[in-house]
């Protein structure tokens, strides 16, 4: 656990980057610091590995004040991923990854084999080991950056806008990769971003910081979306806050109707849309009364697994305006209309 107690950072010119910050970052969780530029998020992050020294207040890592530690030794125990990867251009991929093991004086062979292990962990082929950073794409460099940060298996990882310099598609896959890695490794991660969507996707807890280094709100993503503390936080969360909340609500409570689900070969009874299913209950197509032929089915959602956002997406994409709920095997359980899906939003926010 990382604990900030009344930490202030004031620069000689009088600018206050961080103002009386008290904050606990839980062990084994992802804490995201998010906010507009000038909110002190990077400064806060860099105080954890003493790249920036606080003007007052104290920071403790698992109870130990970090001011007592030797900075280089402290930093070797804390992984660090920077924007653009910050890879050493003059070192091969494997040597980049083995940087901290080398600094720690590991045996050469052990450091290399550990580096190869990590390349595999972050999804890079072993053939990349001998390449130089300039021979990699931005996304691959970022993966190497993550592998390098993990090399000496530090309990804490600091990530400073690590995915902001890559295109959205690559960013999404890197985010998914991080979630997958974290499920496996349970690191204490402090992640800085200016992208609220990224914060909500990755964070177990999200700290929204205001310009001048004050906390706007520190809460779970679901609670942030449901109940922003003030105007600033609400505005920072953006206009589709309501829709995004759906991502945090499960679809298990939805009432599914089966009236309009018909077997293949039978004539639909109703006057509107019906979903035609085959003998295995898999969706075949949509039939509209008075029209011959079927319209194709779009995206369906897995009841109890997917979020309400996925359910709403299904309703929006299918021509009937009804979402198709299926079980884990893809068999149709029933249909849900849009108002039923968004009904949950009107209820008071459930603590998650």
């Amino acid at each position, binding site marked *: 656990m990382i604990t900030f107690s009344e930490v202030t950072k004031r620069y000689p010119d009088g600018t206050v980057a961080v103002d009386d910050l008290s904050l606990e970052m839980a062990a084994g969780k992802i804490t995201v610091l998010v906010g507009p530029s000038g909110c002190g998020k990077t400064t806060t992050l860099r105080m954890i*590995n003493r*790249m920036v020294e606080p003007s007052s207040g104290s920071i403790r890592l698992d109870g130990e004040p970090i001011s007592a530690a030797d*900075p*280089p*030794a*402290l*930093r*070797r125990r*804390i992984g*660090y991923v*920077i*924007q*653009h990867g*910050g*890879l*050493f*251009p*003059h*070192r091969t991929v494997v040597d980049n990854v083995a*940087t*901290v093991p080398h*600094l720690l004086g590991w045996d050469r062979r052990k450091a290399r084999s550990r580096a190869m292990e990590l390349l595999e962990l972050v999804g890079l082929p072993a053939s990349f080991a001998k390449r*130089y*950073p*300039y*021979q990699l794409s931005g996304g691959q460099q970022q993966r190497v950056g993550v592998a*390098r940060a993990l090399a000496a298996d530090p309990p804490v990882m*600091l990530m400073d806008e690590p995915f902001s310099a890559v295109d959205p598609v690559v960013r999404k896959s890197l985010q998914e990769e991080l979630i997958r890695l974290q499920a496996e490794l349970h690191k204490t991660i402090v992640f800085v971003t200016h992208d609220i969507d990224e914060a909500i996707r990755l964070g177990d807890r999200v700290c929204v910081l205001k310009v001048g280094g004050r906390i706007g709100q520190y809460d779970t993503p679901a609670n942030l979306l449901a109940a922003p503390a003030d105007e600033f936080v609400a505005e920072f969360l953006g206009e589709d806050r309501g829709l995004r909340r759906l991502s945090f609500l499960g679809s298990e409570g939805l009432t599914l109707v089966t009236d309009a689900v018909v077997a293949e070969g039978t004539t639909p009874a109703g006057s509107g849309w019906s979903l035609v299913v085959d003998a295995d209950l898999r969706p075949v197509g949509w039939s509209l009364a008075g029209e011959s032929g079927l319209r194709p089915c779009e995206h369906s959602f897995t009841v109890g697994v997917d979020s309400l956002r996925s359910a709403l997406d299904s309703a929006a994409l299918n021509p009937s305006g009804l979402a198709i709920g299926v079980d884990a095997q893809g068999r149709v359980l029933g249909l849900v209309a849009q108002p039923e899906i968004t009904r949950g939003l009107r209820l008071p926010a459930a603590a998650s």
Partner: protein
Amino acid sequence: MTWDWRWSWIGSHVDLLGQLLGQHIYLALTPVLLGLAISLPLGLCCVRWPRIYPVVLALTSMLYALPSLALFVVLIQYTGFSGWTVIIPLTVYTLAVLVRNVVDGLRSVPDHVRQAAVAMGFSAARRLVQVELPMAVPVVFAGLRVATVANISLVSIGSLIGISGLGQLFVDGIQRDFPTPIVVGIVLTVALAVLADLALVLLQRFLTPWSRTRRARS
């Protein structure tokens, strides 16, 4: 006036040519090595304490502006007709070129790379040796190439005080109104400069495999 070309002169003076070539290489390259040995720590100090950099630049530029002949004449009083009379001025010129490149090279290390090195837990000394100096190599080599080629050509001026490797051939040819040594001197000097430059390019490629393609692209 018709010049008396006697190419057989070359065949009968191979030993002399070899000796002069060797002396030329010694007089031209010793200053490069000395200049590098001095400009590395000097450049590091200029990066560490930026306030002294303008002073160092002003001093080295001033020394660079001194005519070499004047320096030779002054130095003869102290170092006599030894190689040092040529080596010292050329070292000063090399220094003027290289300090700039060492400083630029160290400053060419991108900030995010430096930050990453700090965050990984490099001590200042290790960061310098393992990250900053290796990354400064391309820019330092650009300076080494300029200094090396310049020195190879400047050594010939030493002929005015009789210490000059291949430059002797020019004096000899002019004094005897005999063009062959002059032409041989020019050809050997140029060939030496081209080969030395090529050697430096190859050495740099060997030292910086990581920048090869990037340079080709730009």
